[in-house]
């Protein structure tokens, strides 16, 4: 069953001179950890907004094509219904948090849905535990660090129990350690069955965890598939995507006659593959 199906999606912002999205076709399986990359302005953020109903309901504009979330047609449902299927986390940590304590922030979503009070309370507890932020329960969001704020934002989105979590450059404003911590959190959530769709520039941190990599450029999908294949293609350099160093090294080594079994997505994988080559050499 596909979590997300995008069929020939075209979208133009109100007053836009040309479409921001030009015929996007995309399938995301349930349980996938999909990373969407592309140079600035390629349409990544626009695509995200189409997946949870912000486009067209919040942004207006002209939309053509279909987007299905677990089989539900996105464009014909109101955003608040889609919020139960797709949770979204945005780039600016602080601007997503509107309440004065973390507890209330997480309760906001379920409260909006009119769920019974015991259910709201249960979900708040569950989210605090799932994200490991119980100690932040009574703190004010604006007092927290960027990394903590993003965890609260994730918790607040998960309180609606969506099966898909969509994140638009959530680590942009975080320092590298917090970014790494956040990605680890996402990996754990993914292991427990949550489908993750992540727009990200910092591929060094995420490439090794991705099960699918989608590359956008100028409103079109230019690559979609296994991260190793996608990242080792020459196209990435042309587009200005930050190819992780292990893969760049893989290519240079290949030119020097050292062929690794497959493109490595992390330094650890790289040395393991080199060890294989060495072992093979030694047996000659």
């Amino acid at each position, binding site marked *: 069953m596909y979590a997300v199906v995008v069929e020939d999606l075209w979208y133009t912002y109100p007053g836009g001179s040309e479409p921001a999205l030009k015929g996007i076709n995309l399938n995301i399986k349930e349980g996938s950890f999909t990373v969407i990359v592309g140079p600035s302005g390629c349409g990544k953020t626009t695509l995200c907004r189409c997946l949870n109903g912000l486009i067209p309901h919040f942004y207006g504009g002209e939309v053509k094509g279909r987007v299905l979330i677990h089989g539900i047609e996105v464009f014909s449902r109101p955003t608040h219904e889609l919020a139960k299927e797709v949770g979204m986390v945005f780039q600016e940590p602080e601007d997503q948090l509107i309440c004065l304590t973390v507890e209330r922030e997480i309760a906001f*979503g379920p409260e909006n849905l009119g769920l019974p009070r015991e259910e709201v309370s249960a979900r708040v507890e569950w989210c605090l535990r799932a994200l490991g932020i119980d100690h932040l329960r009574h703190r004010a969001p604006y007092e927290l660090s960027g990394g903590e704020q993003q965890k609260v934002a994730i918790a607040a989105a998960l309180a609606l129990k969506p099966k898909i979590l969509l994140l638009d450059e959530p680590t942009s404003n975080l320092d590298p350690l917090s970014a790494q911590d956040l990605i680890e959190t996402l990996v754990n959530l993914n292991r427990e069955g949550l489908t993750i769709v992540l727009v990200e520039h910092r591929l060094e941190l995420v490439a090794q965890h991705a099960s699918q990599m989608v590359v956008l450029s100028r409103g079109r999908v230019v690559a979609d598939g296994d991260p190793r294949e996608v990242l080792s293609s020459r196209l990435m350099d042309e587009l200005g995507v930050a190819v992780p160093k292990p893969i760049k090294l893989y290519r240079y080594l290949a030119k020097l006659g050292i062929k690794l079994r497959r493109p490595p997505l992390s330094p650890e994988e790289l040395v393991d593959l080199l060890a294989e080559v060495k072992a093979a050499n030694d047996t000659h």
Partner: protein
Amino acid sequence: MSLLRGFSYVKGSSFLHKLDPRSKLLLSSSIALSSILLRGLLYPSILLLALSLSLLAASGCLRRWAPTLKGLIPLALLILLVNWWFVGWAYAISMVILLLTLVCSLSIFFLTTSPDELSLALVKMKLPYELSLELSMAIRFIPTLAREAQLIVDAQRARGLDLESGFIKRLKNLIPILVPLVVNTVRRSYRVAEAMESRGFGATKKRTWLFDLRFTVKDYLTSVSSLLLLAFSALFALTA
């Protein structure tokens, strides 16, 4: 800026903090109204001011309130001088006391009531949810705006913006501060709205509230005391 600190919420667990916002509202209004009724009557006014200040002290917020006091000095001096000139010393002093008591009574409410509680109280008092949410969000974003304003001032000063000389020049020089502030606030409001929509805002009219406000014995006592205070002040004012 320091003046505003007298009106922004300070976390705490004092007696006042734990009261229902509605009884606190009644308390603050009673003190404010009483001070107006008792204006011109020196000794009762001083007593009332002393009461207000001790309430502030009891809530642990007196130190927080001190900068506000400092910020009020220019206004207080103005009132003192004008009233002394036109009426007399005693009246002038009682006007200053009135000012201080009014500010103090407002602070008692705002320093001990979190915006979340306030918005909940407003809803309980039948104000539409959207309005009370707007209010509490506005309050929530005050520290954010203050921080941003400081960043903008720093950035523009580093480009040579002069914020020191000449009154008229300073007004014109506010444009490089106000434009980015307003533009960013508008952009931010879009981002906030997006986030709220993505969490089901507006899904149903029958919204749940996890936290509830309930009147306890202390609240009833406070409310009754506030009304008594008001009654006594009215009586005193009429008979004096």
